[in-house]
Each structure stands twice: as C-alpha cells, then as structure tokens.
C-alpha cells in the first residue's frame, strides 16, 4: 500500500510541476498577477508531494518490503537500519528520487526566502525550476519508477546493498553532492529569468549570488566526501582517480568557481554580463551532462549504476532541450553590445577575468579528457582510455598559473589599481613566501622542488590575505571592532582562499612524499616505513552484521613507543559474496598511516599487505571544508537581506504592469 501512495504522490508532484512550469510563466508573459502569485504555493506543494513520495520509498526500505523491485535488488534484511535508509539512494531509481527531492527543496527555498524579489522575476525563476522538475519527474515515471513491484515472485530476502556503499561517508555524500549539483539550477533559473525579462543588470547577479555560493559550498563538501570515501573505502589509498563520474561532479565545480567570481564582477561593476549568464548556463548544463554520463552507460566507471540505453536517450533528449533551449535563448536575447563600463588592466576585474579563463580552460580540458574515449569510439578509432597522467599533466600547470594571480586578487581594487600599490602591499608577503618555500620542506627528510613551489604559492596566498586583513582592521580602535567591521562576504572569500591554499599544499605534499610498500607479511613480521615500525601481530576471523572477515592486527611503533594499533579487514559479504577490502587508518594533521590487506599468499597465514605513509593528506579535505564554509558564510551578508518587505515586491509588479 505504501509504495502505491508513494507512486501516486509522485504523479501528483509531476502534475504540479507541469502547472508550475506553465501557469506562472504565462502569467509573467501576460502580466497576470494572479497567475504569477500561484508560483510560490505550487513550489511548496511540489516539495510536499515529492517529500511524501521519498518518505514512502524510505519506509519500504526500512520495512524490508521486498515486493518493491529496488528494495529487493538493493537491500537485505540483515542490513543495519542506517544503511537500509541510505540504500534508498544507492540505486538508479532512488537516487533520481533524491535528485527530484533536492530540486523541489531548492525550488521551495527560493519561493520562501525571496520576499525581496519582484513577483515577475520570482514567478519566472520558479517556472524555470518547475520545468526542470517536469523533466526529472517524467524521466522517473516513464523509465525508472522506483515503486515498481515484483509481483508475483517476491523474493524472501533482498540482494543486498553493494558493500562499497555500506559506509557512513556514503550516507551523506550523495545528498551533499546533489545539493551542489542541483543548487546550480537556481543560478540557472535566475539567468534564464533574466534573459526572458531582458533585464541583465546588477540586480539579477545580486539575487543569484547567495544561492550560487551555497550550492558551490555544498558541491565542494560533496566532492570532498567522495574523495575521502574513495581514500578509506576503496582500499588502496588513492583519493582522486579522474574517473568519469568524479569528473562529472568536478566539472560543474570548476564552472561554478568561475561563475562565483564572474557574478561578483557583474554585481559590483556591471561587467561581463552576458558572460556570467553563459557561465550560469554552463554550470547547470555540466551538472546535467554529469547525470547523463553516469546514467546512460556511455562511459565505464566504478561508480556507474546498471545502465540502460533507453534511459540514456531520455536524458540526452532532456539535456538537448534544456541546454539547447537555453543556449538558443541566450543567442537571441543576450546583450550583444559590449558593456560601456571600462576597467584598467591593473585592477580586480582583470584578475577575475584571469580566474575565469583559467577555470574555464580547466573545465574544458577535463571535459575533453572525459569525452575523448567516447569521441574516438564514435569515430571508429578504437577503445581508448585516458588515464590520470593526462589530467595531472594539464591540471597542475593550470593551477600553478592561477595561484600567483590569486594572491593579488583580494588585495587589488576595483576599476583601477596601481602596480606601485601592489608592490608596497605585497613585497613583504612575496619575500616571506619564497623563504617559506625554500625552508619549510627542509623539515622533511628529502627536499622536493614541487613541494617547495607549492609551499611558496600557498604562503603567498595566505600571507597576502593576512596582510589585506591587517590593512582592513588596523584603522579601528580595537582589534575586535576592526574585525567586526568586516563583512561576511569578505570572510567568505577569506576562508575559501585559505581553504584553496591548504588544499594545494595537502595535494602536493601527499603526492610527493607519499611512501607505499606492498609486500608479503606473515604474523610476527615487521616492516620499516618512514621511521615507523609496522608489526603484523596476528590474523583473526571476525563476524559483522552481514559479513564475515579476516582481520589483521597491526601495531605501529616509533622509537619503540606504540603510536597506533590498526586492524584492517578483508570482508566477505554474505548476501552477495562480494569481497571487500576495509583499510584501517591512523589519521593525523601531518601524517596518515594506512594499512590495507591484499590477498593471502601461499600456506602459513601470509598475506599481501599495503602499507602507506601519507603526509598532510588531510589538508586537502580540511581545505575543501574551509572552502565550503566560505561559500556558506557569504550568505550572511546584510546586503542580501535588504528590501525584505513584500510591499516593495508588489510595487515592482505594479510598475511592471503600468
């Protein structure tokens, strides 16, 4: 019964989304206030019904209703309840429902928190989001109904959730990632609404900025969690694979980063108007493209769900409609005349331009590398694969190029700055940064030029930021009043740039100083690694709720002192028989010790073992968290909360009608 309610709620939500896509936009066209005023109510209704539908599917999972097909193939009665819940989105149908739920949440959030928006704009924005919802809900109802039953032939027990997905990180990774992905639909909707209205001024940039920043923050968190999950769950200590699915989430992030900066220039200076609109379309298009790549099976990936060409075709048609439609609209409506606002070469604008070019080129190189196998296959050139070395080779120089300009950005002034002022402000940070770059890596056993470069660039970013912060607070009577004067927008930028510096340092240090030993070990054996003694104590069988495992007990000493005890496992999940490596990690700010089991070798209890020493690997995730916090902080800025009164919004409509 409950699945039928869920299915029914989904159908109602689908109808609501059609109404939301049609009526308010018709109202906006005919200037019909009544029709436009329906939009917020419809948006909330959409959220309620998608929410009911989601709750029904979650109930089916929690109650082990194996007559529902997705439950039977992705859950099992032995599964711990929390994983039964996360299994809801551990499959194609359920993850689409999650996608739709998050889209409806964003839509309702726009409806509820946009009191200051003119009704005309609000109705257009909500209509565009409603149209996106129509696409996703019809996709679900036509090709991937999550409530399909297995009647007759209900199995006694389910197939179990893929063991790789039975992990705390994977409970929140997809929701966060989708919050980011789907959140770009808000920026997209604002851009389309602005194109439809023909008013591409600073106000649309101001309205969409907080939404974009929050979505970008969620996406950063989501990507970070995915990387963290791969690190400790896939069992070989890698944290980024340039896998098509990872790229699918990374490309919107890159485009979104360009969009954030470009929006700032559009809001503050009225510059790059059409360019910013285009970036907003890009960011969301790349989110949709990512969905297509993951769901259609055109690319192989460890992440891919079971795929189906019919679904792929549906998403491709949807993609063509949304992206093709919005780009056509862009071509017809974007202002073709260049803006009259000018700026000097030495100014913040040109640095933002620099950021945009670097991030856009980075997006395109990742896109190209991801699609290259597909293009070659389509041209009959054979089955190629593009490995991580390609991405590293193009990405590292791009980021290295970015960092020097990035240090200048926060310090420089809009419109016109002078190189003399830059020299005055930044000479000291530059010198100190270079010194740091030369000296800090000396503390490690081996000197490494890459690390020196990374440290110098990061120090340059951090010192420049601190110097700028100092200039901003020093005029105040006390430090506290000085700090209080600084806007949340500035703090957001500060945190995000700081996070980027931490991330770069972590990535370079861990890639360069990482030590990995793969070797055969018997109980009692000891191995030296980076000054640590790893002793394999014993091998014990253990039993979990839905798996059995061999557990290796390790003791790790440094200078005779025990610093950690690790117990990696080799699990065999009972329902599927799938074998899984469960690594164990002793984490720290400056180094991780990582042990994973390979396979048994010969008789006598010897195993292949993977021992890692990973310095500063956590910096990159901490950096990503800082970046996300930065994205969230900017929303607190007062200027996004001004003009809250509904009277002004109504007034705007009257003006529009007159």
């Amino acid at each position, binding site marked *: 019964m409950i699945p039928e309610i869920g299915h029914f709620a989904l159908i109602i939500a689908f109808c609501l989304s059609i109404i939301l896509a049609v009526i308010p936009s018709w109202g906006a066209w005919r200037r019909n206030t009544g029709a436009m005023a329906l939009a917020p109510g419809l948006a909330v209704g959409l959220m309620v019904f998608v929410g009911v539908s989601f709750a029904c599917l979650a109930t089916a999972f929690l109650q082990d209703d194996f007559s529902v097909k997705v439950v039977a193939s992705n859950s099992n009665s032995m599964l711990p309840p929390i994983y039964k819940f996360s299994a809801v989105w551990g499959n194609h149908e359920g993850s689409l429902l999650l996608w739709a739920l998050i889209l409806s949440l964003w839509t309702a959030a726009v409806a509820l928190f946009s009191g200051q928006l003119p009704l005309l704009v609000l109705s257009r924005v909500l209509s565009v989001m409603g149209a996106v919802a129509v696409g996703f809900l019809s996709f679900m109802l036509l090709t991937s109904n999550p409530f399909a039953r297995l009647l007759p032939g209900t199995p006694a027990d389910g197939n179990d959730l893929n063991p790789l997905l039975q992990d705390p990180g994977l409970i929140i990774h997809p929701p966060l990632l989708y919050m980011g992905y789907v959140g770009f639909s808000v920026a997209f909707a604002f851009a389309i609404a602005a194109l439809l209205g023909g008013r591409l001024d600073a106000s649309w940039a101001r309205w969409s900025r907080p939404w974009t920043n929050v979505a970008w923050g969620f996406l950063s968190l989501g990507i970070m969690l995915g990387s963290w999950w791969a690190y400790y769950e896939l069992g070989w200590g890698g944290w980024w694979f340039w896998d098509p699915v990872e790229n699918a989430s990374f490309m919107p992030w890159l485009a979104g980063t360009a969009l954030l900066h470009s929006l700032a220039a559009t809001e503050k200076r009225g510059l790059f108007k059409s360019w910013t609109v285009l970036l907003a379309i890009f960011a969301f298009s790349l989110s949709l493209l990512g969905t297509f790549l993951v769901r259609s*099976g055109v*690319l*192989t990936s460890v992440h891919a769900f079971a795929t189906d*060409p*019919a679904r792929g075709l549906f998403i*491709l048609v949807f993609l*063509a409609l949304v*992206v093709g439609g919005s780009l056509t609209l*862009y071509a017809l409506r974007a202002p073709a005349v*260049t803006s009259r606002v000018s700026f000097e070469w030495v100014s913040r604008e040109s640095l933002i331009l620099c950021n945009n070019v670097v991030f856009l080129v980075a997006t395109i190189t990742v896109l190209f590398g991801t699609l290259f196998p597909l293009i070659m296959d389509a041209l009959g050139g054979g089955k190629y694969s593009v490995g991580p070395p390609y991405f590293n080779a193009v990405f590292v120089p791009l980021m290295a190029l970015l960092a020097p300009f990035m240090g200048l950005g926060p310090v420089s002034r809009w419109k016109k700055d002078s190189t003399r002022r830059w020299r005055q402000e930044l000479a000291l940070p530059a010198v100190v940064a270079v010194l740091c770059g030369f000296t800090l890596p000396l503390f490690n056993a081996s000197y490494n030029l890459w690390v020196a470069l990374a440290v110098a660039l990061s120090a340059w970013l951090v010192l420049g930021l601190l110097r700028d912060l100092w200039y901003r607070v020093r005029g105040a009577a006390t430090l506290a009043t000085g700090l209080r004067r600084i806007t949340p927008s500035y703090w957001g930028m500060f945190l995000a740039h700081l996070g980027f510096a931490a991330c770069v340092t972590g990535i370079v240090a861990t890639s360069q100083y990482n030590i990995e030993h793969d070797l055969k070990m018997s109980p009692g054996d000891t191995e030296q690694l980076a000054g640590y003694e790893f002793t394999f104590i014993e091998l014990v069988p253990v039993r979990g709720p839905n798996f059995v495992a061999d557990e290796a007990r390790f003791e790790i000493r440094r200078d005779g002192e025990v610093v950690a005890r690790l117990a990696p496992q080799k699990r065999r999940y009972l329902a599927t028989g799938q074998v899984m490596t469960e690594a164990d990690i002793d984490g720290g700010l400056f180094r991780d010790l990582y042990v994973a089991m390979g396979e048994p070798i010969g008789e006598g209890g010897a195993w292949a073992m993977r021992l890692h020493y990973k310095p500063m690997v956590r910096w990159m995730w901490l950096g990503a968290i800082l970046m996300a916090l930065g994205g969230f902080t900017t929303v607190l800025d007062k200027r996004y909360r001004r003009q809250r009164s509904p009277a002004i919004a109504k007034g705007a409509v009257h003006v529009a009608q007159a």
Partner: protein
Amino acid sequence: MSPRLKLFIPLILFTGMALFLFRGLSLDPRELPSALIDRPLPDFNLPVLGQERLLQRADLVGEPALLNVWATWCVSCRVEHPYLLQIAASGVPIYGINYKDEDAAAARWLAELGDPYRANIADREGSLGLDLGVYGAPETYLVDAEGVIRYRHVGVVDERVWQTILQPMYQQLSASGDRG
C-alpha cells in the same frame, strides 16, 4: 562576424557534442569482443538433468532455439526465470545448461518455480561452459537450425532484451528456416 552571430557559438559547440553523445549511446564501452558468434555450437556428450540418457549436439540442432546457462547459485537466474517461462509458453524451444550445479538442487528449483526447458544439460564440471566460453550465469545463446551460434546475451533476459534483441533475431531465423 556580427556580434549577434558570436552568441550562437556556444549553441553550435553544444550541438556538436550532443551528436557525439547520441552516437555514444549505441556503443557499449564494456563490450568484450566475442569470438563465438557465427561459429558452430561445440560438440558435447552430457547427461540430461534428472535422467539417465545422454544428450549430444545433434539433439539440439534442427530448429532455432535458445540455450540458457543457469544455476541455482545464481541469484539473477531467479529474476529471469519467470520470463523464460513466458517465452517458453509462446512456443520458443529453450534448452538449459545447468552450469556447475548440483542435480538435486536444480531439480528442486524446477519443481518449485516451473520448468521452461525442453531439456536440461547437466554440465556439472562446467566443461561445455568452458567450450562455449561462458563467463558466468545467466547467459543466453541463440542457436540457428544448423546449430550455429548467432547471438550471445550476457546477463538477465528480461522483456526489453527479448523484445528488442532476441525475439527479432529468433523470428528472422525461424522465417528463413521455413523457407529453406
């Protein structure tokens, strides 16, 4: 170039990419080239499940048929089983290869879930499976009237697979068989 035309560049680039994506839909990146298509079914001499008699290659030849590799240890076989019953009910001959399985368990399975098979070859050691190049179960082969393998489907046969792939090929094979 006029400024307005420049704004069409993103649209044109996207259209090009969409064409590639469309082409990509019809390609399977995971496809392993199969060496067995259009080769004759290998010879074998194996017992029929639950019976004393032996079955040879010659017994299967004569009309187009499906050859379904299954086992009781195979969870997905349970998923496709009801569908095989439907296909068999529509008159399509299906031979089973009970792959690396126990006879008793297999007999119990057929008694419980129904038996869509003309006959079942008990391939206890997986020797026929090895000759056929079976990766695992389920797998389904389409064999024509001359005993030549025409198609191999890896994975579950469901409505979509049957209606879009197997059935059209089967009908074509039966039609040409009737003429000849």
